[in-house]
Structure formats: structure tokens, C-alpha cells
């Protein structure tokens, strides 16, 4: 037997488990003896006590129990053993947000795997030469922004593969595999799990895991004015439909003189900055457009969202022309003047 410091699960103290409504438990189960020990959960920064890890493997589980209804959730688990491969897994994204990794459905991310203890040689069983990497995907249930992680990784994986190389392996994924009727609107989680290949003696095989939140590409609509319209009277009030805005984003209704949105300077008419934990949808009203565009001419309205992925249109821009009629009083004055002139 050897002693190891159980630092592996301390990093799993997620915001969810730190919330006052949740109580965290770290449970260790030695596979050969069946001994179960609840490790004291220490505040961040303090060193946890040493644990005994035997050759048959010791399972570390990180649980969170909710105060409401005593509902327990397995947030993470790892199997560590003197004769088992060691594994670490980290998901990297372009978004620096913490404490969880998050990305957008169309954006690249990496899975960095660090393995040790794998053997090489002809005729050796898979259990000592390889581990299995599993990719599990799960959409958020309708109207929700979370999925029970244990439920996700207990199912059949979306994809699985052997990895037989000690050291660091980095897999570069160009986009999430989540899908929907329109895949750009898909959201959910992707979990990556490294399993030991069991020779039949292990009751659990999970060595390491990591996950990433996936959010959809925002979209939008400009309602109240149609493309290529010519307006002779007041510019109408508008309704802006903002759908699935990225958790950290700044969204604008911009107006550009002319028909282009690139290469010309635009003016923001309405803004909607957002910095939250989940994506959100909103509807905004624009009621003062007429006063902000006093000059006749051709304009283009665009719904634009700034994220760390760039500046993007949420929908097709709307181009319209303003050709105001003279006001009734000025028309009368003009006619009166013309009468006098001609008679």
C-alpha cells in the first residue's frame, strides 16, 4: 500500500457544491477491503489528510447533497491504485471564464490528457497497456441550463477510443458535437472520461474526467421595419428579439449610413451588455428612432453582438430609405407662396 495526497478532488469543489444550499462530501472506498471513509472537507488552501491507497484501487467520490429534499449528486469520481495507470484530464477553451470551462457550439476546444504507468510490450493485456477515453454529450433539458453529471457519464458514450501513450496527449476539437434541429442553437455539456480497462476485478474504472459547458450561437430579429422599405412618415418603433446571447457579450443595435455594415462607421442606437453564468434571451423596444435619424437618406440597421469570438451579426441587416414628406403647414405656406407668384 502507499500513501497519496487526495488533492485530485479538491479542485472539484465547484461553485455548485460551495453554495449554501449544498453540502459537499468526499468519500473514499478501498476496493479490496470495502472500507469506506468520509474525508473531512477542508477549506481551500489547507492540506487534506493523507489517505491509504492500496493495490486494488481506491475510489474517491465527490458528492453534493442539496438541503431541499436531500437529493444527492455525484459531481466527480476517480479511481487511484498502486498498479493502475495514473490519469489527468483538462478541458481548455478560448473563454477564460471560471470555475467551469465553457465554450460556444462552433468554437474549438482542447482536451489535454496526461497518462502514466502504462506498459508496452507484445502480448500484454489491454488493462495494462491502454486506457479508454470516452466522450459523452448531453443537451440541456428544455428550459434548463444544467445536467446531472453522473447521469451524463453513466450512459453510452458518443465516442470512445483507446489511448496507449504515457505523457501528454492533446486532442483538438474544432467544435462541439452537440446537435439540434438547427445545430447552431444546440447547448449542453460535453464530458470526457478516462477509464482503466478492467480485467474484471474492478467495481469502478473512472480514472479522470473533465467537462465543458456549450452555449449556442446567438441570433436575433429586427421587427417593425422591413428590408428595402421607403419611409415617408415617422420611422416606426422597433422590437429587437435577442435570442441565446452568449453569457459574456455586448449586443448593439447599430445604424450605418448607406447599405454596408463593414468599412463604414456605425452609430449604436441601443446596447445590451451581459455578464452572466448562462446564455439568455431578451426582447427590447426602440421607440426614439425618428429623432435619432433626422436627415433623409438610406440607412442600414444591424443587430451586432460582441463576444470574445468576434463581432457578429445576429440576423440579416435591414436597409431602408427615409424620404420624409414636407409637413402640412410648410406645404400650405409653400402653396400660398406659389399662388402669389403665379397670379
Amino acid at each position, binding site marked *: 500500500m502507499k500513501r497519496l495526497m487526495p488533492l485530485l478532488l479538491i479542485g472539484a469543489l465547484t461553485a455548485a457544491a460551495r453554495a449554501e444550499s449544498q*453540502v459537499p462530501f468526499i468519500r473514499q472506498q478501498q476496493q479490496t477491503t470495502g472500507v469506506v471513509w468520509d474525508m*473531512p472537507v477542508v477549506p481551500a488552501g489547507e492540506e487534506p*489528510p493523507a489517505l491509504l491507497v492500496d493495490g486494488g484501487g481506491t475510489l474517491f467520490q465527490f458528492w453534493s447533497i442539496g438541503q431541499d429534499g436531500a437529493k444527492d449528486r455525484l459531481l466527480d469520481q476517480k479511481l487511484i491504485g498502486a498498479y493502475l495507470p495514473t490519469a489527468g484530464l483538462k478541458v481548455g477553451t478560448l473563454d477564460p471564464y471560471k470555475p467551469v470551462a465553457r465554450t460556444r457550439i462552433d468554437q474549438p476546444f482542447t482536451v489535454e490528457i496526461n497518462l502514466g504507468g502504462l506498459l508496452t510490450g507484445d502480448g500484454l493485456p489491454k488493462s495494462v497497456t491502454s486506457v479508454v477515453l470516452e466522450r459523452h454529450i448531453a443537451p440541456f433539458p428544455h428550459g434548463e441550463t444544467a445536467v446531472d453529471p453522473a447521469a451524463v457519464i453513466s450512459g453510452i458514450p458518443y*465516442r470512445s477510443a*483507446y489511448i496507449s501513450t504515457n505523457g501528454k496527449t492533446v486532442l483538438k476539437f474544432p467544435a462541439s458535437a452537440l446537435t439540434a434541429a438547427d445545430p447552431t442553437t444546440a447547448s449542453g455539456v460535453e464530458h470526457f472520461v478516462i477509464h482503466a*480497462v478492467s480485467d474484471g476485478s474492478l467495481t469502478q474504472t473512472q480514472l479522470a474526467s473533465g467537462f465543458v459547458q456549450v452555449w449556442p450561437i446567438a441570433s436575433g430579429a429586427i421587427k417593425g421595419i422591413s428590408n428595402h422599405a421607403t419611409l415617408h412618415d415617422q420611422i416606426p418603433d422597433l422590437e429587437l428579439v435577442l435570442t441565446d446571447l452568449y453569457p459574456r457579450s455586448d449586443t448593439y443595435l447599430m445604424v450605418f449610413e448607406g447599405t454596408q455594415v463593414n468599412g463604414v*462607421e456605425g452609430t449604436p442606437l441601443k446596447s445590451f451588455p451581459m455578464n452572466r453564468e448562462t446564455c439568455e434571451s431578451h426582447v427590447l423596444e426602440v421607440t426614439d428612432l425618428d429623432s435619432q435619424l433626422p436627415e433623409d437618406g438610406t440607412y442600414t440597421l444591424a443587430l451586432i453582438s460582441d463576444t470574445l469570438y*468576434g463581432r*457578429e451579426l445576429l*440576423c440579416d441587416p435591414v436597409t431602408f430609405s427615409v424620404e420624409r414628406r414636407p409637413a402640412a403647414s410648410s406645404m400650405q405656406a409653400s402653396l400660398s407662396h406659389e399662388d402669389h407668384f403665379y397670379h
Partner: protein
Amino acid sequence: MKTAIFLWFLAGHALASQPVLVRVNALTLTNLQARDPMINLVNPLAGESKVVRPAKQSIISTSTILHDGAQWTLVPKDAVVFLPPAMKSKVNARPVGSLMPWAEFLTKNQAWITTSDVTFDQAAGNEEIPAARAKAWAQQDKIVVAVHHGGPISVRLAESSPTLTKR
């Protein structure tokens, strides 16, 4: 007011300096998704890789519940090594009230819970718990929970520990 106008000007200026990209469409995304790097790795054949996934586990169902009527906590099954008959109502009832971490619950309920330190070998049943200690448990009216480094631990009784009263 001047500051607001200045910031608005800066925002407008910044907005003018970046290209505006068209929203990614479904076809482009589908093409990106097809470039999955795991396709190029060796994939297990059906039923070849024997992995055990953590399905349908519950820490509550594999624990002993202790409660004082207002709060409750849980310890591993077989961590309660002595249970006086008068204390049976405080064990394994339906959890009601607020959940407390073990250490806090113990501090609050020292009047009827005590602990006994055991080694890992004693917990595994490889080493006997001294009979004198087990006798001492029975001479008090408190629930005794086995602990290791301050955390509750299940105890598998060694063959020759007849004096222990199992729950």
C-alpha cells in the same frame, strides 16, 4: 455627463474598428463537427473495452443517517459501532431539517454522540479493536462512531472481536 458622452464616443469608435462577421450557419458548423479527432484514434470494438460507469449511485442510500430532530448528517454504513437501545430513534430516520457536515453535527450533538479513533487496519478487519475499548463503549449511553483522521469510517469487525455490539 461629459464622461458619458466621451465613453459613448469611444464605444462608437471601437465599434467602427472591427469587421462585422456573418453568423455561422448550420452547414459550416456541421462541417466543423465532422473533424472529430477521436475518429483517428483506435476505437474499441463493441463490447471489447470493459469499463464500469458510475450509474445509479447514491451516497445517502449507502450511509447511516444521524439526526437530532432539527438537523441531520450521514456517515458510512458500519461506522456506528455502538448504538444504545435508547438512541435507536436518532438513527436512520427519514432525513428532515437541514443537513450538516459531520464535524459540525458532532460538535452540536456531543451529548449523545462520541467517537472512537480506529486505524485503517482495524477498519478493514485486519487488526482487532482492543476489547477494553469496546467494553468502554457499552458502559456509556452515547452512540459511538468510528473515525479515522477525524472522518467517519466503516468498520469491518475482526473475527475475534466478540465484545463489539454491531448495530
